[in-house]
């Protein structure tokens, strides 16, 4: 229990402390330290949950089960490795004069603040607080997107803010409707936003209200997930902010938003089960959105000229895939989605870290200016190449496993959709590699010099992805399976 509070409090404290620490160099290290501490406590928390099962705490305010605890650990872990990368990276940016120390302070404070909101969103039992925390995550990151104060970054931040704000407002309306549905069933309406309570009475909730609520929630949180056609903010925000921010946005924020969607889907499924003429409504909607996002984002990949933008489209694509998988339901697809979520976070953040170094090497984010990375700095070049191979779903990297399972699951229930999935995978793959190829291969341009790069996080993440691809560790498999049981009602093991 204390582990949970520690997990939440450390980043909160960190955020406050960072806001007042003046010296940047220490701040970078502090950032790492806070994130690392969070990781440690989150692992302790995870072990606790593993040992004693789901737990409620602080007057039902927090609820930790198998589904969210692994996301907590993942969030803390990726935040830590990204923080490790962020320290030298941001120092370099400071050295280049793109930032001043005041903005560095803002950056670090908001980094921790963002971490806090994410962890809060994951661990809370209250759907209202979940909303608050997600909105908080937007607020924490929006100023970071415009950190460089370039016209593009301001524009991106504005779009991010407005679109996510509007989206999330719709989610709030959905939450209100949810509360409304619960309040008409419950004797103590105050508990009507607690997920545990709602999940218990899901069968009694009014199906029509729930489906309307789900539409609002899906459009709302779906905006944050980056589902097409609500995705427009995402590439802008990812490409214009500082790279560590892109890494955590892509690797974590999207996950948490999807987490929210899945939680509500579980409720809606419960409410619609057996009483409605369309019991799979939530699943169908998610599948449709997921597939659309997946296909459209794959096509977008072909036309990119900014490397970070390209990878943010790749994030949309993968979120689409996960949404599709969760929508498909069933143990296998759910397991695949959970695995994909984990691996996508790891690999995508690794890629953004590499991309950060690559942009420093080339001095630009423009794809056609980045050339010959393998020659200039093999570690970065190979990191980018292998990371892209991993994200494209090549075995032995783990994303292949999840895609494989997803395909098999699709084959079982919707055989013809596999054609769409496969062509999407192929198109996306071609889009990624046609751009990556000239960047990593070939001769380096004149005057392109290696930079001091910390590739440890990248290779750590890729090794993890490799490990999961070859053999999912028993603990993790058990975890995923428990989460699968929660979501799909039945495990795969």
């Amino acid at each position, binding site marked *: 229990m204390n582990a949970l509070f520690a997990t939440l409090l450390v980043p909160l404290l960190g955020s406050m402390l960072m806001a007042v620490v003046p010296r940047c160099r220490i701040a970078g290290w502090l950032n790492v330290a806070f994130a690392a501490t969070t990781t440690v406590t989150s692992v302790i928390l995870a072990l606790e949950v593993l040992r004693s099962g789901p737990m409620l705490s602080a007057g039902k305010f927090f609820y930790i089960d198998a589904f969210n605890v692994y996301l907590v650990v993942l969030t803390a872990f990726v935040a830590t490795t990204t923080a490790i990368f962020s320290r030298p990276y941001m120092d370099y940016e400071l050295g280049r004069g793109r930032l001043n120390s005041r903005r560095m302070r803002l950056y670090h404070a908001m980094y921790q603040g963002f971490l806090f909101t994410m962890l809060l969103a994951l661990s809370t039992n209250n759907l209202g607080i979940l909303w608050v925390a997600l909105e908080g995550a937007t607020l924490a990151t929006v100023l970071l997107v415009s950190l460089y104060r370039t016209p593009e970054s301001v524009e991106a931040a504005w*779009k991010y803010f*407005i*679109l996510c704000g*509007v*989206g999330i407002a*719709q989610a709030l309306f959905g939450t209100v409707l949810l509360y409304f549905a619960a309040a008409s069933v419950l004797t103590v309406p105050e508990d009507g936003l607690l997920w545990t309570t709602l999940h218990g009475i899901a069968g009694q909730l009014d199906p029509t209200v729930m489906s*309307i609520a789900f*539409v*609002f929630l899906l*459009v709302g949180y779906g*905006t944050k997930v980056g589902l*097409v*056609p*609500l995705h*427009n*903010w995402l*590439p802008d925000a990812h490409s214009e902010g500082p790279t560590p921010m892109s890494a955590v946005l892509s690797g974590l924020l999207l996950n948490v938003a999807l987490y929210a969607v899945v939680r509500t889907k579980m409720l809606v499924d419960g409410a619609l089960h057996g009483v409605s003429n369309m019991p799979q*409504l939530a699943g169908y909607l998610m599948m449709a959105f997921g597939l659309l996002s997946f296909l*459209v984002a794959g*096509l*977008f990949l*072909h*036309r990119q000229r900014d490397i970070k933008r390209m990878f943010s489209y790749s994030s949309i694509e993968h979120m689409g895939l996960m949404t599709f998988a969760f929508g498909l339901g069933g143990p296998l697809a759910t397991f695949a989605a959970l695995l994909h979520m984990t691996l996508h976070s790891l690999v995508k953040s690794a890629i953004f870290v590499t991309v950060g170094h690559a942009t420093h090497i080339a001095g630009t984010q423009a794809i056609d200016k980045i050339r010959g990375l393998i*020659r200039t700095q*093999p570690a970065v070049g190979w990191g980018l190449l292998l990371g892209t191979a991993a994200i*494209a779903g*090549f*075995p*032995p990297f783990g994303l*292949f496993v999840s895609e*494989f*399972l997803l*395909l*098999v699951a*699709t*084959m*079982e229930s919707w*055989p013809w959709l*596999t054609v769409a999935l*496969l062509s999407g*995978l*192929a*198109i996306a*793959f*071609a*889009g990624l*590699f*046609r751009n990556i*190829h*000239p960047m990593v*291969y*070939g001769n380096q341009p004149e005057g392109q010099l290696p930079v001091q790069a910390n590739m440890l996080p990248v290779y750590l993440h890729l090794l993890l992805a490799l490990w999961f*691809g*070859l*053999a*999912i560790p*028993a603990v993790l*498999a058990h975890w995923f*399976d428990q989460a699968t049981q929660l979501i799909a009602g039945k495990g795969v*093991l």
Partner: protein
Amino acid sequence: MALQLIAYAVVMSLLSALVGLGASRYRALLRLACFPLLGLSGLAAAAGGLLVLTGTAVAAQLPLGLPWLPWSVRADALSGFILLLIGVVVFAVAVFGPGYVREFQHGRHSLAALGVFTGLFVAGMQLVVIADDAFMFMVAWELMSLSSYFLVAFQHENAPNRRAAFLYLLMAHVGGLAILLGYGVLAAFGGGFGFDVLRAAELPPLWAGVAFALAFFGFGMKAGLVPLHAWLPEAHPVAPSHISALMSGVMLKVAVYGFVRVTFDLIGTIQVSWGVIVLLVGSASALLGVLYAMQQSDIKRLLAYSSIENIGVIFMALGLAMIFLAAGQPLLGSLGLIAALYHALNHALFKSLLFLGAGAVIQQTHQHSLEHMGGLLKRLPYTGTFFLIGCISIASLPPFNGFVSEWLTLQAALQGVVLESGVLRIVIPVAAAMLALTAALGAMLFVRLYGIAFLGQPRTRQSRQARLPSRGMRAAQALLALLCLLLGVTPAIVIDVMGAIPQALGGLPEPGITGQGWLWLTPVAPAVASYSAPLVLLGLGLAWGLFYLLLHGPRQKRVRRIHAWDCGFGPLSPRMQYTAASFSMPVRRIFQPVWLLDERVERITDARSQRLTGLRHQLQVGDRSWAVLYEPIGRWVLAAARRVARLQSGNIRTYLSYSFFTLLFLLWLIT
């Protein structure tokens, strides 16, 4: 024992990859450690494969894979056979490699990449062959594709190499996805990924057809069947030559293995129409492959197209086998299968031999184009001789091995008369005639290759100054050449051993090709057809020996060396020789519509006197499949991407309205 050997083989190749990591810093490591380890791996694989082929199947489970589905490994006779094939070629490559990679020793190329990915590539191929569940198969398969992609991109400073690597990876990925989906279809009916489950799955004919089509597409893409071959002539030539040998010699056979495994073993119930499709596609590949090869001037590109031809021949034999099996003629089915696999083995040997030879030539002359070679037999007598053996073998001339498998395929085709269907009775002999045409063109192709590159006079300074390649390189070629001869002369022994393979694939009967002892090949029955390669060789030797003795009696005068007759126009120069392009000109004219030809003759005239001072001939040979298949797809994707890009207009109000209308639409949808 067999299992240990196979495990040893895989571990060795992985170890080679691991050691390769250090090769960038310690450059000698590649020669001193990676290649020896690969060689050991090859030996172990060959030994293990042989043991499995002659003994019983072995199986095991690995502590890897999905939690509920550990990777299971099984090697039966078919796997053993392909392992043997892999092992032999890998061993030869390992002997060849150390001398060959000296070329890269002082360059800027990352030797670590070469070492690591060669090891992984070999390990991937070995794992594919022994995988016993779809999941492990796919992982190993893609490992093979991915690592060979990195090898193709090894010399990435050249733009064509990058393009080739991208194309290769893309097509490998698409093919891999198709295979995956094929397994998905089987798994959906079987309820699991293990091969035993898939084998037991009962598929309705439609879905069986879908599974077959996907497998054929996927494996055919890897194998390079027309029109899915576009990557092959791009990728094989640009890899380092020993890798080209592995890719053309072995990886394509792994694709054949996959196809045989899925079609004959897992799906099991074969339909006649599948066989016809495979036969026709195989014929097209064989014919187009050889015709395209005929117009290439890059030696490795030529060999790559020739691989398409040979894969076509293999698939023709497989198609025959499928037709016979579906028509209830299991004995003939086995014959076709053996013919296909024997050709696979032969092609592995002689194509590796040729690629290694090409590697040696390129290393010594730094020329890729036939038009810049010439007279190399005198400069590189060993390479030249072994290359000649490879050429004779691949041109399917007796008494070498290529002929044996082609002969078996033709024999199988001639049994088409036993079939009920009149259409098949016509289609099959016509396909056999295609095969004959292919073989004849193949002979012409290799006359062209050998004659232009190794005979005549050197066309460039580099060819004139070529020096002997290293001892290891020669030894590797000698080994493969010897095997070509052995397999050509004693096919009965090998085919006898291969008799276990049909048995392993759903209990097909042994075809009884070797029923008359080691001296004879008698498919079907001795009265129908027989061939005794040893006696043929004996006859050739006798005739040669007799006449040599007769003509070299003591009264014979010595041979006098003198300039060739120059028609009195002054000395012959190398530029007067027939070129590769001129050699294939008649064929170019006869089969004109096959290629996208861009042939130009430029007349160079003196500006003042208006006299013709020279002619410049330019020839571009384009592959039609691009214009017909690939470019439209590429255009379609780009057009779709352009359409889609309009979503991201940059205007926030537009974005808001997306959100707005999505909401309204969904609300309308649910009420």
